[in-house]
């Protein structure tokens, strides 16, 4: 005879993330800065020092925000060269170069991003949009993916075409270099191809098909991996998008698919606690061991936080503004998230509680 009044045992609570002692506290994530631009921002990247954030936007310009300048009315430095929206963006790992791609197929490798930026190479890389760019770990190669179904690998030094990776049968939405020098690309139907760059051969395919559907009603493919990111050692890959999309009138439900890179198997289908009509866009692995993504839709914008072994987000931040976060980047010191918003504002969120200000008088007395 049991003591408890219930016959069934209490359900196991999923273990919630416990912030590391010397790490950040996702639960405390708060908006610390808003940097306004004219038009929707589609991409954002911190530079290696964390002093600058670069954005690509619908005004065709690359903006550089100097975060060391704390003034309220801070203006960004803006750099022209692209002739359409800039969504593809990747920083070079060891120097102040930046690779960007636009909607009309141009890939630009910029140099002196921290000084007087100018295009080092301006390449007509694709017929139609460049949807994503990635820079190799050694900084020597740049990969671009586009609407012409091609993935191309370029020499960062000379700007010349090194390799063409053909095989996708629809628009290629994303591309990323693995730390080992191989490349993964993902398309509209959410099929991933893992390439050997040297030989140009495809090594294997991975399937992120949960993020894709063919809409019979609208007779169109709906899908595309919006964001793609490896963790630091390349053992895991996160892909973002939405699942269960009914058509083209509104989004489905945001998802981040977590793959084990070695086996190619899907480890987790990461989802928000409550399914809303949203798409997940940018994603990052935090060194503390959690995964953070940005996204949203007309309903609003969100940040979601997951542990890699738990499908349901342990924390969620809903933006004040009803504008999705199209892109996300983690500051080099791991404390801040930069989010590129549809409303044209770059927002910085700190994953730490508000610092307590000691009473000045008290401090003086001690």
């Amino acid at each position: 005879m049991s003591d408890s009044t219930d016959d069934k045992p209490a359900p196991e609570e999923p273990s919630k993330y416990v912030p590391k002692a010397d790490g950040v506290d996702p639960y405390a994530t708060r908006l610390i800065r808003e940097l306004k631009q004219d038009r929707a921002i589609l991409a954002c990247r911190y530079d290696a020092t964390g002093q600058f954030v670069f954005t690509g936007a619908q005004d065709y310009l690359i903006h550089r925000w100097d975060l060391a300048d704390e003034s309220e009315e801070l203006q960004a430095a803006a750099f022209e060269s692209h002739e359409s929206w800039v969504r593809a963006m990747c920083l070079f790992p060891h120097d102040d170069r930046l690779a960007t791609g636009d909607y009309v197929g141009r890939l630009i490798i910029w140099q002196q991003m921290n000084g007087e930026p100018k295009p080092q190479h301006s390449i007509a890389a694709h017929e139609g949009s460049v949807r994503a760019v990635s820079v190799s770990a050694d900084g020597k190669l740049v990969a671009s993916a586009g609407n012409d179904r091609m993935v191309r690998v370029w020499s960062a030094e000379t700007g010349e075409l090194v390799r063409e990776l053909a095989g996708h049968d629809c628009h290629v939405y994303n591309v990323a270099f693995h730390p080992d020098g191989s490349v993964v690309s993902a398309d509209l139907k959410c099929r991933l191809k893992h390439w050997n760059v040297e030989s140009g051969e495809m090594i294997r395919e991975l399937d992120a098909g949960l993020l894709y559907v063919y809409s019979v009603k609208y007779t169109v493919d709906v899908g595309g991996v919006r964001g793609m990111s490896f963790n630091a050692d390349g053992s895991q890959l996160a892909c973002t998008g939405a699942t269960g999309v009914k058509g083209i009138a509104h989004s489905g439900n945001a998802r981040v698919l977590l793959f084990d890179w070695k086996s190619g198997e899907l480890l987790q289908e990461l989802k928000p606690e409550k399914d809303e009509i949203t798409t997940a866009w940018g994603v990052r692995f935090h060194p503390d061991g959690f995964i953070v993504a940005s996204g949203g839709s007309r309903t609003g914008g969100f940040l979601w936080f997951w542990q890699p072994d738990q499908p349901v987000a342990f924390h969620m931040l809903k933006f004040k503004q009803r504008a999705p976060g199209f892109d996300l980047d983690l500051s080099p010191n791991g404390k801040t998230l930069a989010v590129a918003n549809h409303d044209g504002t770059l927002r910085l969120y700190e994953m730490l509680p508000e610092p307590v200000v000691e009473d000045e008088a008290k401090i003086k007395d001690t």
Partner: protein
Amino acid sequence: MTRDPACQSTAHLVSRRSMLGNLVAGATGVGAIGRLVHPAVAGEIEKKKKQVLIFLLNGGLSQFESFDPKPNTDTGGPFRQIATAVPGTYFSELMPHTATIADKLAVVRSMYAQKVPGSHGGARDFVETGRPPQLGPNPLMGPVYSTVLEQPDELPGNIHIAPSRWGPRQDAAFLGPKNASLVLSGGRPPLNLERPESINEGSDDVRYRLRRIADLRFSQRRRTAHSEAYSASYDRAAQLIRQRDLFDIAKEPEKDQQRYGTHDFGRHCLLARRLLETGVTCVKVTHNNYDSHMENFNFHLEQLGEFDRPFTTLIQDLDSRGMLEHTLVMLITEFGRTPAIQPDLGRDHWPPNWSVVLGGCGIQVGGVLGATNENGTEITDRPVHVAEMFHTYLQAVGVDPTGVHELGGTRMPLGAPERSAVKELLI
């Protein structure tokens, strides 16, 4: 010849009918496949006959991503504009093939409608009937054409090549079911065209004949309008069954099947060509779907990517076959899309201004009518109301839009009485 009301002999009835020239189903066999009239011959016989080809881009085609691009603006989106065959006229880069035939088209950039219902169906009805749907139902263009234009003898005159899930609809309103469009869902032959397996060809002939005789008996001592209409519908069914190859594009040359492409819209365009060549008066092709509230740019890229080439191929083929002269072509949609780009990179519905394209019979081509301002938020020149376009669609094929439908005592105007055709578009 006077009828003897007392005569009830069936033999007498049958031969009298034959003398009156009515087709008796079974005379040439219901099941036998008739030869389609050869296109060249068709051209001669029906030299002056007008035809209509309607492209309905369903969901609301974005004027920014098609015929009224505004690159480098806050509303224009990421795509560029490209030059067309008409110097000084630019289309969106999403329509490279259509750009090459701009000299065969007239673009109207200043279409508008007011008090449009929010729903697609209502807005579509407004465009296709020339009347506010709240005052409906009114007949769509296809049924209207079937009453004012010459109809083919042995074919349905008004056919809608529709997306897969679209079924038959009562689109003829007060013109009645006999004038309703024949719907080819997914471009497939009409429902129930194929005989069930349990009935063979011979059986079909026999049963139609028996049925016909029953009707002749029934109508002997009665007023005959209804039974005649009923019998006529079976005659048409028998005719259509004989003509079922009409719907089979596998009968078109292989090279054409390649040129038009293997996806649905390409095949539908080839089918439209086939139907028009054999003399169908009005063919509508609907392309799904442009209602991109989300990811407008991705989806217009996909849909126009599908649309651009087969559309161009069809217009060019009509032209090279000398058919564009007497075939009115129109490219319509129920409204445009918002200049403002929404948070999920979509565009919403926009009736204050959008684009429509005409070509072919009776139309002044090679130009643009109307204009919008720099970022496409308003009309700056020659607004054209949906109802004015409806008048134009009639006048272009030689029909007086101020005329009426005579409906046994009631008269309904063809076009909205307070509007008139757009003279600038007409030759």
